[in-house]
Every structure is written in structure tokens, then in C-alpha cells.
């Protein structure tokens, strides 16, 4: 069942983003930044966790999930360490992914060429 919600909610977030892109002439960067900030705020309000437990990857995979993961790391580390956690927590959950992106990117650059 979670798979259905993942599809429905994940698709919805993307579909609404597309509407915003077409209607308001926004750039992709503007939309992604809005989503990532929203994810962080909703995580701070305690809402995003609930969304993920219901809609699973439908909320985790869109880049708002990335924002919520950054916020989640910062919140948990700052609870644990105090103010230093505000600085150390950002990559607690996302570090794996960002590091992976750099490594895969470099590998791809070594072994692949942009296609025509």
C-alpha cells in the first residue's frame, strides 16, 4: 500500500512543481530551493516525519525530503551537543548521499562522455 501512496504523493509534488514552473515562469532552481526549504521547515514543525511514515518515498525522495533530512540531522545533533550540533548536524543523514554524488560524479567523468 505504501507503494501506492509513494507514487501518488511523490507524483503530486512533482506535478504541482511542474504547474508552478509553467504558470509562474519560475526557474528549476527556484522551485527546488522552495521545496528544500519547505522540507526543512516542516521537519522542524514535526510534520515531515509523519508525512514520510504515511507516504514513504513519496515524501522522502523529492528534494523536500533532502531538506527535511538536513533539518533532522541538525535538530538531533543540537539536542545532543547544544549549539555545535547546529553546525555538525547538516550532513549527519545527507553526508552519505552528497559524498556518494561526488564519488559517482567523478567516476562517471572518468568513464563516461556526455552523449551528443
Amino acid at each position, binding site marked *: 500500500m505504501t507503494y501506492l501512496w509513494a507514487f501518488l504523493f511523490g507524483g503530486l509534488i512533482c506535478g504541482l512543481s511542474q504547474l508552478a514552473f509553467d504558470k509562474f515562469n519560475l526557474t*528549476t532552481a527556484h522551485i527546488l530551493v522552495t521545496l528544500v526549504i519547505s522540507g526543512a521547515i516542516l521537519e522542524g514543525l514535526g510534520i515531515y516525519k509523519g508525512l514520510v511514515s504515511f507516504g514513504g518515498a513519496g515524501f522522502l525522495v523529492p528534494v523536500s525530503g533532502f531538506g527535511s533530512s538536513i533539518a533532522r540531522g541538525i535538530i538531533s545533533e543540537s539536542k545532543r551537543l547544544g549549539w555545535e550540533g547546529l553546525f555538525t548536524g547538516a550532513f549527519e543523514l545527507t553526508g552519505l548521499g552528497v559524498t556518494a554524488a561526488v564519488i559517482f560524479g567523478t567516476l562517471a567523468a572518468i568513464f563516461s*562522455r*556526455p*552523449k*551528443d
Partner: protein
Amino acid sequence: MADKLLGKQTMRLKSPPVITARATVVGHREGEGPLGEYFDHIIPDDLWGEDTCEKAERKMMEEAITRTMEASDLTPEQIDLFIAGDLLNQIVTSSFVARQVGQAFLGIYGACSSMTEGMALGSMLIDGDYADHVLVATSSHYQTAERQFRFPVELNIQRSGRAQFTVTGSGAAILSKQGKGPRITEVTLGKVIDLGLRNPEDLGSAMAPAAADTLLQHFNDTGRNVGYYDLIITGDLAAVGATMFADLVKEAGHTLGNKHIDAGTMIYGANPRFKAGGSGCGCSAVVFLGYIMKLLEQGRYRRVLFMATGALFSPLSYQQGESIPGVAHAVVVEAQ
């Protein structure tokens, strides 16, 4: 009043220079388009065996020049002047190719209007008795333009229906004081016109006002109208820009109708993959030098107005919220 100046912006060439040789080299997408058979050489892929697409673009311009020289009877030393421009920062393609050409060099930048800017300049120098033979060339390349103006090639972008696709192509031509071939009889140099358009995904609409301005000025200066020409070819307003251009010209009382075609819409045909059509210096250059010149030589057209248009913005200017000014230069080419 200067002797050969007509009206405000048109120069009459009293000894019209002849387009004695030309050649075009294009990428595989252009080769697969409706005009494929008219180009002299089609490269197999964007890199053409080189490490970078910038090197490939230079190789294309060199190839176009080599073939042009072969088509003429001239030795390299007989070229008095080399005029070239392209889209890359500091027009490096042209400057680096100029090393091989080895003769006096004038680099020009007119964005996609470079071909007619070069032809106009070369014609005036020949008519003014300053040169016997002038070599003019331009080029553009899809990947080099994308990475300079926009995004990495593998990035997921959705292009709007107004967007244009930079043509991978280079055209070169030799203008001579004497010889056989179509001749350039007048040139009209354009003003920069900016109606405040900001969308880099719709360059055609940004350039259309400049094209209209130059054409109307040309008609004013010469006293001619649409009927004088068999063909008015613009480069590259593409689908959206061409409509805007025709409208603007109509508002001033001239109906273009079937006499107007645009290199941007012709190079890829109506293929929706390429959205509104082609753009880039190479677009108008290869369409005119490859296709239109052939029709002029065959006598299918007698009098053609060739007007290339350029969008004079930089990657930084539109990020800083500036609008996109346009310019258009026209040359009148008459069959022998």
C-alpha cells in the same frame, strides 16, 4: 554626404564584389535535416575525434576554409584579409583558426548575425579597393554554446516550445573583386534594438525588432519594397521570432508573405525535437552558403536579401536581470 551612402544605413557597392567560392561543414543533426544534401561535409559526432568540442568547432571552421580555398583558384597568400566571428568568449574559435589562415585578421562579434556582418564588412573593403580577396567565416557548435551560455549537456532540462537549438556548423566564403558568381550589391548595417525582452529561451522574439528595423530602414534607404526581391531570408529568428518579425514589418505597411523564409526554421524542418528551430552563427551561414547560394547559381532566385540576426547578451547579463538587445545586418545578393 558620403558618396556611396544611401539614406541612413545602406551602402551601395559600386563595384559589387563576387562570392567566388564557399563551403559548409555541419554536424550530424544538421546533416539529418531537410537540407542535408546541400552541405559539403557532415561530421560524424560532436567531438569529431577531438578531446573537446571547442577543438572540434575549430576543426570545422578550418575544414570549411580548406574546402573554400580548394573551390577557388587561389593560394593562401592571395587572401588579403580574413574576417571571422563565432559565439565563444573572446571569439577564440576564430582567433585560433586565424593562426592557420596566416593572413591579416579582423575578428568580429555579432552573435548569430556574424555571417552578414562579415560579408558586409568584406564587401565594403573590396568595393573600396582595399582588397582583392576577402575570406569570411563563422561557426557555432551545440555543445560549446550550451556549456558557455546554459547548462551541462547531460543535465535534465525541459526546453520550452520557444527555445532554439544551436546549430553545429561552419560556413566560409571568399569575396573577390572579379570573378564569376552571385554578387553583393548593397549592404544595410543594423542598429542595436532592445524592446526589453528578458527570456533567454525566446531569442527569436528578442531579435525580431532589430530585424524589422533593419529591413524597414533598408526599404527606406533604397526606396524598394518586398516586391523587388525574390527572397528575403533571415537567420535565425526561428518559428516564434519569424512570426513576430512578419507582424512588425506588416504594421509598417509591408507584407512579406511567402517571400520570407528563415534559416532557423529551415535547418531542422518542422522536427519538434528542435522546438522553435535552429540558432547560432553557423545556422544562417550554412543555410545561405550551402542552400541559397546553390539556388542563386542555378538562377532559381535572382535577387535575395540575406539578413542574419544576433542576440547580443552574455551568460552573465541575463543572470543579472538585463534584457536582450538584438542586431541585424543585411546584404543584397544578386545572381550573376
